[in-house]
Every structure is written in C-alpha cells, then in structure tokens.
C-alpha cells in the first residue's frame, strides 16, 4: 500500500471507518503515545509548570490524551470531522477546532507556550484537500508563519513527521526558517529501519541560546514499551473508578443552568431528558 497521504485528501482518508480503526489499533496507540512522550521531552518545558499547548493535527486525541494526563491545558486542530468526532467521544479535555492548517492560524501573537504535531505535516506536502487550497509551498509558508506568531517568545514547537525524501526535509526546514524559526531536524534511531523517527524541532526566540537536542542512538529502548504499559494500567484503573472528573452529573448541570437563568442569561438550553447526557457529534 502506498502512503496514506498519497491515497486521498486527509478528511476523506480519515473517514468514519479509518478513524475508528486508527484509534482502536493498540499497536498504533503505542506508537503515537511513544512519539508524543518523545515530543514532550524535546519540548523541554520547565518541569511542573503549567502550560497551554497547541496540538496540530490532533486527530482523535491519542496525543491529546497524554497532554491531559501530563496536566497540560491544550487546544487541538484537525481537518477530519470523523477524527474529531472520536476525540469528542473519548472526552479529551482540549478545545477542538475543525481547521486546515495549510490555511494558517488566527491565534493572537504569543498565545501558546508550545506546540506539538504527531504524524501530520507530511500531509501538507502530498495531498490536496477537498477544501479550497493552494500549492504545497504556499500552504507550508502560511502554516509556519502563522504558527510562529501564535507561539510565545521564547518557546518551541516539535513536529514529528514522515518525510519521503531528503528534498522534502529540505523544503520544510527552509520554509520554517524563512518564517522565523530556529532549530532543525532531530532523528531518533537513524540506523534502524523500523524505529527511525524524524522530529522537526523548532525554536522561537531565545537569541540562539536554545540548545539543539540530540537524537537517540542504537536500538529502540524497551523503556518506552514499559511506559506505555504503565499508562494502560492507569487507564484501566481510571475506567474502574467510573466517570472522569470533568463529566458532570445531571444535577450539577441543572444547578448551573438555574444560576445562569437567574443572572439573566438568554438562551440557556431547556432542561430535558438529554441534559447531562453524553453527546454524539454530527457534522
């Protein structure tokens, strides 16, 4: 099979069926989780300090769930409605946007403390979307310029992606630099066909004081596997304890609505038997 980004536009490729398959596949969950942890490591945010993070191409929330667990507040954008719908079902805590990153962002300057993107930006090189679009270099330029401005100074963005040639890496890094970013490419396990991973590690500001991180060498560590297993145990434990904390029970919502009505707010939804129920997304 050829690479996904050569087969169809992203919002078509990640339709209902593929989005479900992608999200439920445990092997895939592990790979995406590993890369998210590694991206966080490369971000090198100050420990124990809260941060507001942008997840670019957040999909069904596999990367966002880790941001939740690590205690970060985040917003995610993705072009595929079916992926976002699953993210809603999985009750991730980030704010979600239906957005084509090739059209650029509208976030005010300095909005985010960091950005991550896991397995996404190769899509900007290869496929058109079914929405209005422009050439890949133009889309990349729009993406990097508006991302640069949305990030705080100093900060970092770490974008793992799957380039299909050195030319592609060259094109991406050149456009990122033109947009004002410092930094460059970090390759983990460069000699392993299976474990090799490419991270674009971008810096905003810092006056050149930001140190380029080193790629990992040798064979993939078992370490990451252990980390993933621990996480699944935690998930299971959480599931056992019932509802997650942010899901409000009906009484609580009714009480809040009452309060809003008292404050004179119009358009507070009427209470119904659906109040406080989990919603299903429809686009």
């Amino acid at each position, binding site marked *: 099979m050829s690479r996904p980004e050569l087969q169809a536009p992203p919002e078509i490729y990640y339709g209902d069926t593929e989005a479900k398959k992608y999200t439920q596949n445990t092997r895939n969950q592990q790979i995406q989780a590993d890369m998210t942890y590694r991206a966080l490591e490369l971000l090198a945010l100050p420990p124990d*300090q*809260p*941060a*507001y993070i942008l997840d670019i191409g957040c999909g069904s929330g596999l990367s966002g769930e880790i941001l939740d667990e690590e*205690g970060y*507040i985040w*917003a995610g*954008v993705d*072009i595929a409605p079916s992926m*976002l*719908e699953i993210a*809603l079902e999985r009750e991730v*805590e*980030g*704010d*979600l*946007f*239906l*957005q*084509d990153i090739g*059209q*650029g*962002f*509208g*976030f*005010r300057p*300095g*909005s985010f403390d960091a950005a991550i993107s896991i397995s996404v930006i190769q899509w900007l090189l290869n496929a058109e979307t079914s*929405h*209005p*679009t*422009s050439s890949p270099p133009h889309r990349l330029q*729009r993406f990097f310029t*508006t991302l640069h401005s949305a990030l705080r100074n100093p900060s970092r963005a770490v974008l793992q992606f799957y380039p299909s040639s050195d030319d592609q890496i060259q094109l991406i890094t050149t456009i990122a630099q033109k947009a004002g970013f410092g930094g460059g490419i970090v390759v983990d396990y460069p000699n392993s066909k299976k474990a090799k991973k490419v991270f674009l590690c971008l810096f905003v500001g810092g006056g050149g004081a930001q140190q380029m991180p080193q790629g990992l060498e040798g064979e993939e560590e078992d370490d990451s596997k252990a980390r993933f297993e621990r996480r699944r145990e935690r998930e299971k434990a959480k599931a056992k304890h019932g509802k997650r*904390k*942010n*899901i*409000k029970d009906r009484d*609580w*919502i009714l009480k*809040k*609505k009452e309060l*809003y009505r008292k*404050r*004179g*707010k*119009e*358009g*507070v*939804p009427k209470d119904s038997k659906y109040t406080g129920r989990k*919603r299903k*997304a*429809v*686009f």
Partner: protein
Amino acid sequence: MVRLITHNLLACHAKDCNTNNFPLAFKDAQLEIREAEFNPEFLKGFLPKIEWTALVDTARQLGDTSLPLEQPEMLDDEFLKNLHHVLLEIHVEEGSMTCPNCGHVYPISNGIPNMLLAEHEIG
C-alpha cells in the same frame, strides 16, 4: 468545547483581515458548564496573555458577571475561582462566532468551531 480561554486568543484569519478582527462575536450561543480542575498556578501564568476587556465583555454576553471591569492587582482566591470558571468551565456548544471586521461567520457545532475558509478568503 470552545471555552473562553481559547476564544480570548482567537482572531479572524481570513485574507487581509488584520485589524479590528478580535474578539469574534458569539451568536445564539448554547452553553454547557463542565467542572474543571482548579489550577491557580496556571491561571496566574495565563493572566498576561488575556485581553481583559474582551474577556469581561464576552463573559457578560454569556451571562457571567463575576469578573471586574478592571483586572485586579490582588489575585485573591475568589477572583481566581471566578476567572477559572469563566476561562475553563463555560463551554459554547452550539451557535457561531462572527468577525467584527470582515463579517466571516465561523459556525460552532457540537462544541467544535468550523474554521475553514472559502477560496477567496485564503491568505
């Protein structure tokens, strides 16, 4: 799940729409309130990023009058709790956001704003 924390950072990104393009105006907003973990450190770190007037105005439009017109210098617990509620617990589930400059309407469905632009709006 548009919360005011994100709304307060969001300007219109249509082509050549660079001034007076913030804040986007909510219309027909349907709200859901969901409790979130109170994190005063996060709030203090986030305060400098906030456009205060836009936040207070938007919160009032949505029926929450708990925030003072002027950002207080003393960050007491009551203020931080109100700020926490406004930024992180009010979710706009349905409705739309309109750009005050170019008039582009970003519809919100199931808590997800559609930020896609039309061909002539791409920068």
